[in-house]
């Protein structure tokens, strides 16, 4: 009997300096391509340095500390034209995020509803959902945005505002609605509630892990009520935070009190939400259709309730198909929010553009836009990848 000799791996072929050798050829190619890239970028850079010195523009981010002198009408954080460019940029970032975050939430809700409606057994409902999707997908977003903005401007003035529901006013000043004027005390209570949510999440994970060990069910909802509702309410009561709702009222030509969504913000939000929801609807529809019908049949044959089957069997499987394309829709929505510049909503792109025109710091302004969007894109990708890994199929 022959003994098995341990198989030796073939030695790596030595690199020889001839064009017949693959490794050497690869090295040459890399040197060539990187060399061209370095030469081109270096040439562009030296041109830029020369042009900037001719125009007497100093490079660098020192201009961020100068007074901006640019008016920004719709802000969530305090800002006046006397503030610095840095603060103007922060206002712009907040304005971008406020469209992106609220837009993502609303587009997901609307898109899921339309996607499920497209699968409805009701012919009329599914046809209407299909028309919604087809129409919105095949018209450029910028055109839709201009269209919404023109409609917004064509609304009656504040005096003749539409009142769809008591307390809500729709006019060419935007949408005004009842709201609670928030100050630091309110934010403190909201912070406590957020901490309560986090604590409840950890506690629930712990309880489920215990249940997995001994099989005894442990209800977790009382802790939820305690941590998320009772605790913040107690803090609010002890520190006397007033929760009075301010109703908007017409004073002269404008409204006072309540919360106002400026027409630019409102038009932008409607445009990105309806446009993106059409794409999300298609993703949700194909995700649900991708779950095999046998999964429904098998679960129902086990005697499970329909709602339980949807929640625990169909949806988790559909989500696996839905999440990756959904992530790229979220990224698209965030990037599309930059169309704001066309209707004068001051997001980061619009503010960087104004800065560029005022100071001539083109390279820095565009670098800042890119840095902001790359950061937001990367954060969304990381979060969605984490979520995707959590729900991914774990096979033995």
């Amino acid at each position: 009997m022959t003994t098995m000799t341990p198989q030796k791996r073939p030695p790596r072929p030595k690199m020889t300096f001839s064009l017949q050798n693959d490794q050497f050829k690869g090295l040459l190619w890399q040197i060539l391509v990187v060399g061209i890239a370095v030469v081109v970028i270096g040439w562009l850079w030296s041109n830029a340095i020369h042009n900037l010195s001719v125009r007497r523009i100093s490079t660098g981010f020192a201009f961020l500390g100068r007074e901006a002198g640019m008016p920004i009408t719709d802000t969530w954080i305090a800002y006046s034209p006397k503030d610095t460019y840095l603060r103007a940029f922060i206002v712009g970032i907040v304005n971008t995020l406020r469209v992106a975050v609220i837009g993502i939430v609303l587009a997901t809700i609307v898109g899921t509803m339309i996607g499920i409606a497209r699968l409805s057994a009701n012919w009329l409902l599914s046809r209407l959902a299909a028309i919604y999707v087809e129409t919105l997908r095949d018209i450029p977003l910028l055109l839709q945005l201009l269209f919404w903005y023109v409609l917004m401007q064509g609304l009656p003035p504040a005096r003749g505002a539409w009142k769809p529901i008591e307390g809500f006013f729709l006019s060419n000043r935007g949408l005004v609605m009842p709201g609670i004027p928030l100050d630091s005390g309110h934010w403190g209570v909201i912070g406590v509630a957020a901490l309560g949510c986090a604590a409840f999440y950890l506690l629930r994970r712990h309880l489920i892990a215990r249940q997995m060990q001994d099989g005894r069910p442990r209800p977790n909802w009382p802790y939820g009520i305690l941590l998320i509702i009772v605790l913040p309410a107690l803090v609010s009561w002890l520190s006397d935070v007033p929760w009075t709702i301010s109703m908007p009222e017409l004073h002269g030509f404008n409204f006072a009190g309540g919360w106002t969504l400026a027409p630019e913000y409102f038009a932008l939000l409607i445009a990105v939400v309806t446009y993106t929801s059409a794409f999300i609807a298609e993703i949700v529809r194909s995700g649900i259709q991708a779950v095999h019908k046998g999964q429904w049949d098998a679960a129902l044959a086990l005697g499970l309730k329909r709602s339980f089957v949807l929640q625990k069997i169909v949806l988790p499987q559909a989500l696996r198909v839905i999440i990756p394309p959904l992530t790229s829709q979220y990224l698209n929505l965030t990037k599309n929010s930059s169309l704001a510049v066309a209707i004068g909503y001051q997001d980061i792109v619009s503010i960087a553009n104004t800065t560029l025109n005022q100071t001539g710091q083109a390279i820095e302004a565009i670098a800042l836009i890119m840095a902001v969007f790359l950061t937001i894109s990367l954060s969304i990708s990381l979060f969605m990848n984490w979520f995707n890994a959590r729900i991914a199929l774990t096979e033995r």
Partner: protein
Amino acid sequence: MATLTDVPQAPRPAARHRTGWDAHPALRWMRANLFSSIGSTITTLILIALLAKALIGLVQWGLVNAVWTEPANDSAACRAARGIGACWAVIPEKYRFILFGTYPYDQQWRPAAAILVFIALFFVSSRRSFWRRELVLIWAGALSLIGLLMWGGIPGLPYVAQERWGGLPVTLILATFGLAFGFPIGILVALGRRSKLPAIRSLCVLYVELIRGVPLISLLFMASVMFPLFMPDGFNIDKLLRAQIAIIMFAGAYLAEVVRGGLQAVPRGQQEAADALGLTYWQKNRLIVLPQAIRHVIPPLVNTFIAFFKDTSLVLIIGIFDLLTAAKTAIIDPAWQAFSVEVYIFVAVIYFAFCYAMSRYSRSLEQAQTAK
């Protein structure tokens, strides 16, 4: 002997009660698809009520109370109908400007012919029998013909400067040239991203991720304000061409990802067989891998093209005269300022017609692929 007809048969259920709902196929269809349950019936009734209300409003605004014709440069009748009826009269008044921009009026048959060449080019490219190498020559020929029609400069076709171009041809040029020049870049970058050479791979990854991570607008801003900074003194190129370069770079990054998807779908055995035959890297990709990869990705390629076609409208922000900019400029005219909704609807119909045709086509291809 009993014949088959003697066998007693259960009465057909359909024959038993052919009354009410089952009297007519249309009624049966309605019962199954509109009134199958209480919930479905309520949904149907609510939707019919909402739909009727919306349709009556739209018909009154768009047809009954609409103004269709007006004497030239006079919008009195339209202004009288404002708020209750549409002013379609703005379209015959302005359509030449919206479609062709400021192109010399008596030469506007040339952009019109260019649009027809574009449509013919799309049609030819959609036929399966033309999916051969010769298609590249057809594209080169058609694009040169379009350039000749738009620029002119030969006897019979007077020269028209690029600043005068506008409207639909510019939209089609930006999208189609973006695809035509972005595609080779996309192929090279996709191959580079799969290459074994680390320096080339990381350069390609950097290019794709940088471009895909930022909005197209920032690239267009870059093309319009930063490009002159990066060029030597006295050297400058036309604004339209700069925007076109930005769109080509943008298209290259997105097409690279589409092509990469196709490359991943080609079985490894194909590559190994090509290696075994002793083909070089370029021969292997040109003859074996790419033809298979590209056939795989034609449906997503069409979808990407639809996205570019819509995205070219962003050049409005840097002031290039495409279809949307022409429409927006047409209604600056004080007489017609109030009727932008009608003009936007007209332009939306044009965009929709192109995009819908292409998306129907890509879906039919997908269905043919899955049926195989």
